[in-house]
């Protein structure tokens, strides 16, 4: 069976002229703090989220630094056990709930979805602003809990420890998570309705950019999964505050029930964290290899598949928690299924590079880093989905390494790729190409050094959440901490050069990467309603028509990164192939 390309190609239009800078654009339409705090512009809200989650990322990173420094010595190098327990809990809570979950959906999703589908804003702009406030209120409680001494239950909050035994600020911390969950629901709802109802004329589901598909799938999970953690955290708080509770073994309650309810959300939550990153990778790989995505439908359906199947796996976190033999079999089996769409995506991304024309600016380096690290993260997940091996590896550093590979090596790199890709659009500035590539390299190398030793020591049995450990694990811990310092340095660099770019960066054109998405059809930074209201976009073809050299409105692409377009006489040019898609051989892969 071959994949034929038979539809009539649109008439070629030369690249549009560089759009005039928007006057005013969404950034300079007003300069007041009040204007920012009462905005209903999805782009400004995206920036508000960007600033907030960067702060929480820094806080979570400091907590990680404390954890890793303490692990230099087998009996705790810098803090006592109680402080260590609070440090790793703070790291988990901050990073998961206040950075990873909102990162791409609330920052990039908010900013880009309306632009990518040719709309003026999200469906519910006021709800969008409310979601940021709710997020900040929730984060406020979380930060208060940490500053008031912290929580020491681990981010997983298992009772009876968290409900009866812990002497820490459980209720404010959990309340913070509870509140910020509503923000997640609001964002998810907003994105889903927007994608359903506000696509530009011609933007069919089959022409949506894969970033939108990923975020749609993410929003589905946010919408349906988060309410369950909401009720779970609420029940936990009731038990802790009022002393009555349904997880209390003394009255016949079952603490394992908490685990079921908790993981029913928290497993799909990890797909909330990874799917948007996958969407970014699809956008970046296609742009920087100048090719269509290989297998658009496969990748789109994979996102949906991951979202749906992802709801059926939760008890693979509980294989040794006391669940029945048959439950364990079922959840292991289903967990194998979810690995398949992820594998499909990786193969399709690889196929996208085939016969491309690839350049390696920072977004591409981050995206390739995502693929490389996600492969390891995903494959090591298989060890944990397999029952026989999970018994030994559960609650060891093998798990820690696995999830850091997918969440940091995957998602954070995906977030970085997205920030670096869309930075010119968001800020109207270009950043230092050289420093950004260096940062990407340092982050990827530092990441490897930090987490590969953890696989080994987990396999050897080093448990999680241990400030004191047997001497034989020290060498791995030291290696891991050394890597973490490099990783930290790597993260520091973007905070410097991206900030500097705001003041000293070259002004960006509307489409500096020569990408095909609708978001690049507007000036950088865009005007408040994204497009010239008299000329809202009309879509005539799918995304990623790089080979044809057209964007989604059928217009030509400007001079791209690297050596220019096929039409550029200065590029290394094969004269025998005539320019223009009408005469172009469309290679068919059988």
């Amino acid at each position, binding site marked *: 069976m071959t994949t034929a390309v038979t539809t009539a190609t649109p008439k070629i239009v030369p690249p549009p002229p560089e759009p005039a800078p928007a006057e005013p654009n969404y950034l300079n339409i007003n300069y007041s703090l009040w204007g920012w705090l009462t905005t209903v512009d999805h782009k400004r809200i995206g920036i508000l989220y960007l600033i907030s989650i960067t702060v929480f990322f820094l806080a979570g990173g400091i907590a990680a630094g404390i954890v890793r420094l303490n692990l230099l010595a087998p009996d705790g190098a810098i803090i006592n056990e109680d402080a260590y327990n609070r440090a790793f809990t703070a790291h988990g809570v901050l990073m998961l709930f206040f950075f990873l979950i909102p990162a791409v959906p609330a920052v990039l999703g908010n900013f880009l979805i309306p632009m990518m589908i040719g709309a003026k804003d999200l469906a519910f702009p006021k709800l969008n602003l409310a979601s940021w406030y709710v997020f900040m209120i929730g984060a406020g409680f979380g930060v208060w809990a940490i500053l008031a001494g912290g929580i020491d239950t681990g981010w997983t909050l298992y009772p009876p420890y968290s409900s009866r035994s812990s002497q820490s600020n459980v209720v404010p911390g959990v309340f913070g998570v509870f509140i910020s969950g509503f923000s997640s629901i609001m964002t998810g*709802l907003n994105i889903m309705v*927007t994608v359903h*109802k506000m696509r530009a004329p011609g933007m069919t589901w089959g022409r949506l950019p894969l970033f939108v598909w990923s975020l749609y799938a993410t929003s589905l999970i946010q919408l349906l999964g988060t309410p369950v953690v909401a009720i779970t955290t609420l029940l936990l708080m009731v038990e802790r505050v009022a002393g009555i509770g349904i997880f209390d073994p003394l*009255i016949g309650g079952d603490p394992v029930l908490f685990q079921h*309810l908790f993981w029913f959300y928290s497993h799909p939550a990890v797909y909330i964290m990874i799917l948007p990153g996958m969407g970014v990778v699809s956008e970046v790989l296609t742009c920087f290899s100048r090719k269509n995505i290989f297998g658009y439908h496969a990748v789109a359906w994979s996102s949906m598949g991951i979202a749906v199947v992802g709801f059926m796996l939760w008890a693979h976190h509980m294989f040794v928690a006391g669940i029945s033999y048959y439950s364990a079999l079922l959840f292991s089996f289903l967990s194998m299924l979810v690995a398949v769409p992820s594998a499909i995506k990786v193969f399709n991304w690889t196929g996208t590079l085939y016969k491309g024309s690839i350049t390696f600016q920072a977004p591409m380096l981050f995206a390739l880093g995502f693929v490389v690290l996600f492969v390891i993260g995903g494959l090591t997940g298989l060890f944990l989905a397999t029952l026989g091996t999970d018994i030994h590896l559960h609650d060891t550093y093998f798990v820690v390494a696995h999830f850091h590979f997918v969440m940091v090596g995957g998602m954070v790199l995906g977030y970085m790729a997205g920030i670096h890709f869309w930075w010119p659009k968001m800020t109207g500035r270009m950043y230092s190409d050289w420093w950004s590539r260096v940062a990407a390299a340092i982050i990827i190398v530092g990441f490897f050094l930090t987490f590969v030793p953890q696989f080994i020591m987990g396999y050897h049995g080093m448990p999680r959440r241990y400030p004191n450990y047997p001497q034989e694990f020290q060498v791995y811990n030291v290696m891991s901490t050394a890597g973490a310092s490099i990783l930290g340095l790597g993260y520091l660099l973007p905070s410097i050069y991206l900030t500097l770019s705001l003041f000293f960066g070259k002004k960006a054109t509307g489409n500096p990467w020569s990408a095909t998405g609708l978001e690049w059809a507007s000036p950088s930074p865009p005007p408040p309603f994204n497009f010239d209201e008299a000329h809202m976009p009309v879509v005539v073809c799918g995304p990623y028509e790089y080979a044809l050299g057209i964007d989604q409105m059928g217009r030509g692409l400007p001079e791209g990164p690297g050596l220019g377009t096929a039409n550029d006489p200065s590029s290394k040019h094969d004269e025998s192939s005539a320019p223009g898609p009408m005469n172009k051989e469309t290679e068919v892969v059988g």
Partner: protein
Amino acid sequence: MSASTHSPVLKHHFEDLNQQHASERLGMWMFLATEVLFFGGLFGAYACYRLWYAAEFEFASSFMNVKFASINTVFLVTSSLTMTLAIRCAKLGDKAGIYRNLLLTFALGSAFMVLKGFEYAEDFHEGILPGASSFGVTDLKHNIKTDAEHAGLDTGKVRLFLCFYYIMTGIHGVHIIIGLGCILWLVQQNYANALPPDNYSTVEVVSLYWHLVDAIWLFLMPMLYLAGAHIKHVGH
């Protein structure tokens, strides 16, 4: 399309009223899905214990006040009717009718909460409480925990049922109160003439929420109140 042809109720980021209404409806249905999952966690947890501890749960349920619950059910179902009538009035542009039906809905919902308050007070006096102590109340009509012991049942599991009773009816009550707030908001919107016939979907969207809260009660009530209806004993 130019600004001058905009209907006053059209929000600027939408292309036309159809898109706006369709989005609002879809948004509310999605929100209802989250509510179903929110309560679903509770219902799922209850189902587990109901299966495991059938005797204790039925015993504890037999102490619930079925009369109050039935009256409350009538209140809520009727309020759903009046809410739907409010939509009809909005479609027809009957502003007075909108007021009437919204306020009736509000009254019925409030009556539900008031009766609930009486019910909780009675439960308190009867010692039907989930905690280990009885808050120092000494003139209890009977103590459900000692009754359970006499019946040879596990007091802890009886208390577990009561935990569910208070948590589930409590959270449901919170949702009723939120719904009452939304109804008042609609009254205010009506006052501001924001509910003309081409914007009736605002009323529809709130009514969807109200119907869901009603529907949840229709599941909650039999679960909590009727599980022990076959057990006859003195008191209720």
